[in-house]
């Protein structure tokens, strides 16, 4: 039995659902396809992709193989077509995409820089200290209305104070914080 007859027999068995014959056939086809694709001038780093596409096409097109005909021309046609596809894709990529190393290096990351993260932590600490130093009524108004984002009605129920008193406390607290924080910055 010649090599081509062997392939034909394996493909004929595959068409009947023989998975073992099919595995053997695909394993034998891969190096032949790789050689055909390489001869077509496909770059080395694209050969594997083209071989995989060839194997997938063999799978999809296996009903088109006529066991009374030689197998290798059938395989060669598929591998050559997938090589042409790979060359086209490669050509499009190299024509449209350019490598710009400077742009890559200068592209800002999504995360904040380390010094900005430290600044933000400092600011949070200073604000927390300023709030802690407020008189109890004002501190309570800031915590409920500004930090926890409660409504005036809810805060009035929680504290037992009138809404007017809470508004006044919040207003005074904001003025006190503004003075203290701007004083800190000036210092």
């Amino acid at each position, binding site marked *: 039995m010649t090599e081509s007859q062997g392939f034909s027999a394996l493909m004929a068995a*595959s*068409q*009947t*659902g*023989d*998975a*073992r014959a*099919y*595995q053997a056939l*695909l*394993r*034998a*086809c*891969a*190096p032949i396809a*790789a050689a055909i694709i390489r001869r077509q001038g496909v770059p080395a780093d694209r050969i*594997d992709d083209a*071989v*995989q596409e060839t*194997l*997938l*096409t063999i*799978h*999809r*097109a*296996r*009903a*088109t*193989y*006529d*066991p009374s*005909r030689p197998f290798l*021309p*059938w*395989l*060669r*046609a*598929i591998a050559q*077509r997938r090589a042409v596809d790979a060359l086209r894709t490669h050509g499009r990529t190299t024509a449209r995409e350019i490598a710009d190393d400077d742009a890559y290096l200068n592209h800002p990351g999504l995360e904040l820089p380390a010094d900005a993260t430290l600044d933000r932590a400092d600011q949070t600490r200073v604000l927390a200290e300023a709030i802690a130093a407020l008189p109890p009524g004002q501190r309570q108004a800031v915590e409920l209305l500004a930090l926890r984002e409660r409504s005036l009605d809810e805060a009035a129920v929680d504290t037992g104070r009138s809404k007017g008193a809470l508004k006044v406390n919040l207003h005074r607290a904001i003025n006190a914080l503004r003075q203290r924080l701007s004083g800190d910055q000036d210092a």
Partner: protein
Amino acid sequence: MPDGTGYSALIGELSAGLQPVRPLASPWRRAALWCGAVAWVAAIFALFCDAGALFHRLAAAPDMWLSFAGALLTAAAAAWAAFSTSIPGRSSYWAMLPLPPLAAWLAASTAGCLRMRSIGWTQPEPHMHGMDCLYFIVMVAVPLAALLMWQIMRACPLRPALTASLAGLASAGAAAAVLTLIHPFDATYEDLLAHLAAVLLVVGSVRLAGARVIRKARL
């Protein structure tokens, strides 16, 4: 990965759920099946034609029946070629198969326009009749092309544009042949141009749409 072991994962995946497949019938058998569908369409239109007048028209001058036979043979040959080119490994020279009948069809149609003697069993052609012919050919060719492309998609057309063009030519030829059944007019230049425009329109459209469908299906 020269020995194929590097593709083990893919090979294992492809062979894991392997289902038996029945090899496709030969291209000429599949073309014959499509021609059978065309015959059904022609039979429907034949119900509305005057068979006697048709026979006399075709027999009155050689260009009349040559043109009809040319269109019919172009359709059959182009369908056969389309199915052949959709099989991997078959020569692209199959695309030449419809050229002789196509040449005969064009030559006979042109000769009909040059003929000095008008033939009997024909009617005077209405104004702008060429547009009616164009619409008819396009309207009949489109479903025939859709059927042909559906059959072709079961194979693996590696040259999508070539195969789809042949499918378009087959459909246009079949539609033009069917038109002859209900076309009680002598050959004119206006008719010839309208038929030519319709054939080119169908071939171009099917080539564009068919090739796109084949590429999208990643056959």
